[in-house]
């Protein structure tokens, strides 16, 4: 645990990506595989099933620190992170422990879920008393499952690849999908034999960069395949050894959640992997993303919702054919094979090959871009016809070209303090537009301001608070912000009757007074421009 806490501190203390990777490489090359396996698991966002409710930890920490509940709450409000609040409040430890991370996990923490509360308490208090500040913080985070340290999956992959002297793509592949921490699994990450047995594993997704120069710089338009950019859930459909797996880009296995797609995949030949987008789809056109969201949260899927929100897989690409990795073949070839596959199989009704939006000159491509919103698309995807299917976000072969977002001027009405890096700073905002003489809240936004602006706005919020409701403050409706968002749809879940997609702050309109902000009518008019 000491070594892992030290790694945590090193990563946490560095703002440079290179230094974070270096720290991980040092750890992976020196730690025992049993410990390193758990480190990989946590650093890449793994979280064990909840072992102890966070509330219970808070109560025990309060009792051990002789801090009454109200004072614990006041401390937590100031820190913004429960695991850290506990670590800071507890009295200094009276002993130390050299127990390695895997022993903590296997023998002490994982068994906690199945023992009575009194024993849990004894175990935790004993643990707290033998760990110093950072170790305690790490322990609390392991237990509460909120382990976030500011490294992306990609950086962990990079560090592992460097530590093991193997290709990043191989490591990424081996880490994708249901990776379980064990010394064997850890050592297998570095195995020279790359024919991995696990039939469920998806390939790492290839992601496009936003187009950052003019179309003409891309060369001849004939070298590019232009598709619509859909706003659904990116996923890989895997058919291997008589089984079907549907993985999202967020590494979630959703085979059961979209039975239409997985059942249709039964007709695909063995050894097929298709990259695509799960889309709510009816009568040949997409439904708003909000409709899909109605399905994503559900544990059980009734016929009603399946009928109301049918889904399809828009097939983008073919990654594996007859058991062979074909990602290095040119896109043209992959697409032709994909088309043949979908025609041959009866899966067609639930899988639609991503239509080519336009063929022609760059001027035609521009015209298609103008029409994207009418097609309920987010924009265009440009893919070189000879491009391989790469790993991660790489420049060159694929570009995404989104349509300009909707924008509207709205008034800040509520603010709430953030958590973690943004603790004790009001960074979560609610915005409203006018309906007659009253302001109707319609969107929340968290991002878009610089750190300096955040602090300035925080100061303003503190000085102009009208009322406090727990952590939420209502503020004087004076500050106007230009919000940008991608989509807009009717919603019965919002008071305004409208839900917007990916709202964020585009600009702080210090030049505008609240009265000059937009109205609900403007939003409704925008909704009508979308099919």
């Amino acid at each position: 645990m000491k070594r892992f806490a030290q790694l945590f501190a090193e990563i946490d203390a560095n703002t440079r990506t290179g230094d974070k990777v270096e720290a991980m490489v040092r750890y992976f090359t020196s730690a025992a595989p049993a410990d390193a396996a758990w480190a990989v698991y946590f650093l890449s966002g793994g979280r064990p099933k909840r072992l102890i409710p966070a509330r219970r930890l808070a109560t025990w920490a309060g009792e051990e620190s002789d801090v009454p509940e109200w004072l614990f709450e006041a401390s937590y409000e100031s820190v913004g992170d429960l695991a850290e609040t506990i670590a800071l409040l507890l009295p200094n430890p009276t002993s130390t422990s050299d127990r390695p991370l895997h022993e903590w996990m296997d023998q002490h923490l994982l068994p906690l879920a199945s023992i009575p509360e009194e024993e849990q308490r004894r175990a935790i208090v004993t643990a707290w008393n033998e760990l110093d500040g950072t170790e305690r913080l790490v322990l609390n985070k392991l237990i509460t499952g909120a382990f976030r340290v500011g490294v992306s999956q990609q950086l962990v992959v990079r560090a592992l690849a460097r530590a093991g002297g193997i290709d990043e793509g191989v490591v990424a592949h081996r880490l994708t999908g249901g990776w379980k921490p064990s010394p064997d699994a850890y050592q297998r990450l570095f195995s020279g034999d790359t024919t991995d047995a696990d039939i469920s594993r998806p390939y790492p997704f290839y992601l496009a960069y936003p187009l950052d120069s003019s179309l003409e710089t891309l060369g001849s338009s004939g070298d590019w395949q232009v598709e619509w950019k859909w706003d659904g859930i990116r996923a890989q459909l895997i058919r291997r050894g008589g089984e079907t797996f549907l993985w999202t880009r967020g590494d979630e296995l959703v085979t059961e959640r979209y039975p239409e797609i997985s059942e249709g995949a039964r007709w695909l030949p063995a050894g097929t992997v298709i990259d695509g987008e799960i889309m709510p789809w009816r009568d040949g056109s997409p439904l708003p993303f909000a409709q899909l969201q109605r399905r994503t949260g559900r544990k059980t899927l009734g016929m009603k919702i399946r009928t109301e929100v049918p889904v399809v897989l828009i097939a983008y690409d073919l990654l594996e054919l007859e058991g062979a990795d074909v990602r290095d073949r040119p896109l043209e070839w992959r697409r032709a094979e994909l088309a043949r596959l979908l025609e041959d199989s009866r899966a067609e009704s639930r899988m639609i090959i991503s239509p080519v939006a336009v063929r022609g000159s760059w001027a035609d491509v521009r015209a298609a871009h103008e029409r994207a919103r009418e097609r309920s698309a987010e924009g265009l995807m440009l893919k070189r016809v000879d491009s391989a299917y790469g790993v991660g976000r790489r420049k060159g072969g694929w570009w995404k070209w989104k349509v300009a977002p909707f924008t509207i001027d709205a008034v800040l009405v509520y603010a709430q303090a953030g958590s973690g890096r943004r603790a004790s700073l009001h960074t979560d905002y609610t915005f409203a537009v006018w309906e007659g003489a009253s302001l109707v809240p319609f969107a929340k936004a968290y991002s878009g301001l610089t750190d300096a602006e955040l602090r300035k706005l925080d100061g303003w919020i503190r000085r102009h608070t009208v009322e406090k409701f727990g952590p939420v403050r209502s503020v004087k409706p004076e500050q106007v912000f230009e919000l940008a968002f991608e989509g807009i749809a009717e919603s019965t879940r919002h008071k305004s009757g409208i839900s917007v997609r990916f709202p964020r702050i585009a600009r702080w309109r210090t030049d505008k007074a609240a009265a000059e902000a937009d109205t609900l009518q403007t939003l409704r008019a925008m909704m009508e421009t979308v099919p």
Partner: protein
Amino acid sequence: MLLDTTERGFYCAAGDFYIDPWLPVERAIITHAHGDHARWGCKAYVGSREGERVMRTRLGADASITTVAFGETFSRNGVQLSLHPAGHILGSAQIRVEYRGEVWVVSGDYKTEPDPTCTPFEPVRCHTFITESTFGLPIYRWAPQHETFAEIRAWWRNNAQAGRASVLFAYALGKAQRLLAGFVDAPEGPIYTHGAVERLNNDYRASGVALPATTYAGAMPRGHDWSGSLIVAPPSARGSTWLRRFGSHSTAFASGWMRIRGTRRRRSIDRGFALSDHVDWPSLLGAIAATGAESVMVTHGYRDPVVRWLHEHGMAAQALASQWEGEPEEDPVSAEEEREP
């Protein structure tokens, strides 16, 4: 009441004087030279002799400043006054006010940890104690300062090994000199300072405080090699073009707020060292108890939690509004004062 809150600050009607007023007044008794306590524009100031030079630098050559030694009693209209060390920065004082047998003490800002750059804090018995509460939550508990200094040294050493400069942000008055004094024996390399820090270093040295050799960074020629050196600068220099000259460097901030991970991370600095010139939670409660006060007034900081805690422990306490800021999370010194000389 011996002292009342007025729109200009805490006022003693019997003695006709203010303590650390926030607007100009005739007569101001000053706890210490930080900008939120010693403001410009008063007709006459009284402060500690130890702090004379830094007060002069902050208040200007024309200000009328009278100084008294710690413990020396003087009187105004029958009100007995004396200044007692507060251990916050050079010359910082608690102000004891006695009238007809009733004793009040205004703490100003204070810490009970030893600090080689100022006279250590001394508890003063009183009936009413007006205390700061900048770090008045139990999450604020300082590690022994030798540990924090060791961490800073290790950071500096590691940067030097990596061929980087170390830029340490600290408030120009007080914190900067306390940090420097920590390196008076065997610094890890050359030490440079921002102009705002260097000017106050001179005041500290002239007041008899031992500091290591420092050089004003602005005096170095273009193309100077900064790797391995330590640069002490006020927090306002963070993110400024002034930093560009140092080439590859690591940044750190020394402040009590750095005890919290979130406050450090959102600043995008490499390291945070939790070193404060204010009392932490246990020292605050200890200091309050040591005064033997019957009544405690809690000002700038986490007033409400401290008041509630004192109530729950059977003490008479109340929150008191003031415009003092304690250890601001942002920069306490105005841009005017931070300008390069």
